[in-house]
């Protein structure tokens, strides 16, 4: 039961982006298209699960005073290993996901969940948390990327949606950096309204 709770926690209640405001840098940078959002989401989810697993496994061996540097080394090492192995044995996958890997190292969701969850919970729960947070992160990215790609390019997942008339004069700002901030603030505001409404009813 508690496993299920840890799993679903990251999807909405503690959504890493919309609720915890973690991992903003890749979130803003990579959401220019739904395809990129899915790629980054998949890569980050994988690393999140593995780093939660490792940190939880060693949580009793690492002295708490140096835990953060240890986590950073563990995560960076793991990500680099994945990068090298993928590049050598799965070149096709590396070609599509490779650009996201350096961005994952600095993704603070991963360090945040290592510090905030995995170092205090058993391995199984940490893995469940990793899966949930990964799904939540991916979903959040797809939401923002949907708006940005639709408005900025007139397409969704590279499929033509708004027609060529729009594509010739798209709302370019949506796909550029300022558009990410503007749209993010709208989405964040929307979730805040939902939250306060709920709070008011209770």
């Amino acid at each position, binding site marked *: 039961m508690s496993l299920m709770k840890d799993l679903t926690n990251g999807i909405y209640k503690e959504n890493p982006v919309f609720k915890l405001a973690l991992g903003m840098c890749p979130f803003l*940078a*990579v*959401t*220019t*298209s739904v395809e*990129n959002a899915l790629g*980054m989401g998949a890569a980050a989810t994988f690393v999140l699960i593995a780093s939660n697993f490792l940190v939880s496994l060693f949580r009793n061996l*690492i*002295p708490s*005073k*140096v835990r953060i*540097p*240890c986590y950073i*080394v*563990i995560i*960076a*090492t793991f990500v*680099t*290993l994945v990068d*090298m*192995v993928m*590049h*050598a*044995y799965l*070149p096709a996958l590396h070609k599509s996901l490779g*650009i*996201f890997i350096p961005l994952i190292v600095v993704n603070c969701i991963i360090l945040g969940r290592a510090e905030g969850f995995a170092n205090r919970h058993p391995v199984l729960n940490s893995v469940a948390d990793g899966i949930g947070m990964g799904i939540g992160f991916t979903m959040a990215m797809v939401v923002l990327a949907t708006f940005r790609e639709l408005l900025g390019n007139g397409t969704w997942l590279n499929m033509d949606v708004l027609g060529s008339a729009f594509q010739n004069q798209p709302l*370019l700002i949506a*796909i*550029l950096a300022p558009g990410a901030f503007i749209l993010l603030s709208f989405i964040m505001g929307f979730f805040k309204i939902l939250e306060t409404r709920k709070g008011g009813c209770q």
Partner: protein
Amino acid sequence: MIEMLKLGLVLMLVALIAAVALSLVNSRTAPLIEIQQELEKQNAMSEAAASLMPDDSLAFDSLSIDNLENPYASCDELLQVVKVFLPPDTSRIGYVFIAYGKGYSSTIQTMVATRMDGRVSGTIILNQQETPGLGANIVKPSRLIDHLIGMNGQECLLKKDGGTIDAMTGCTITSRTVVNSVRQGLEDMNEAGLFSDEIAVDEEHTEGGSE
């Protein structure tokens, strides 16, 4: 004091394990990665050369760099030009070269096939790590690099710089890098006399004799 030493030791141990794991995996994967990249380069070369003549039996031969007088001081990488011919005929039908340029966040490598008259016949982005969703769209041929086809060194210029090529919206730096690096390569080859018909004919004879 003792505790500090202990913490230091733990950190050292963690770093040591990480370093050993990384170097072990790196020694296994690095040669494989190199092979992959070489293969990719070969494939791109064949693909680019197919724009000259769609024939599977095209052959390549690197021109030694000494042939080119220009030292290419502006670029980290030497210009490597490969001549393309269709065996058994050894007369060249064009060249393939890689243009290097510093883009927005990476060095962009563009593989370019040119005809003997110095006009571009095909382009492929070989390597880039530009911003995903923006500059990285340079790999989509229709966004920019297809427009280079048919141009010679002088015509290869962005609209903003006085030419006729539209930059990709929001990615002027990436676009300019690719266009300028291709132009630089074409001009260097032109200066080295690779495109002049007389020289091509001359070399054809001498090569035909020696091979």
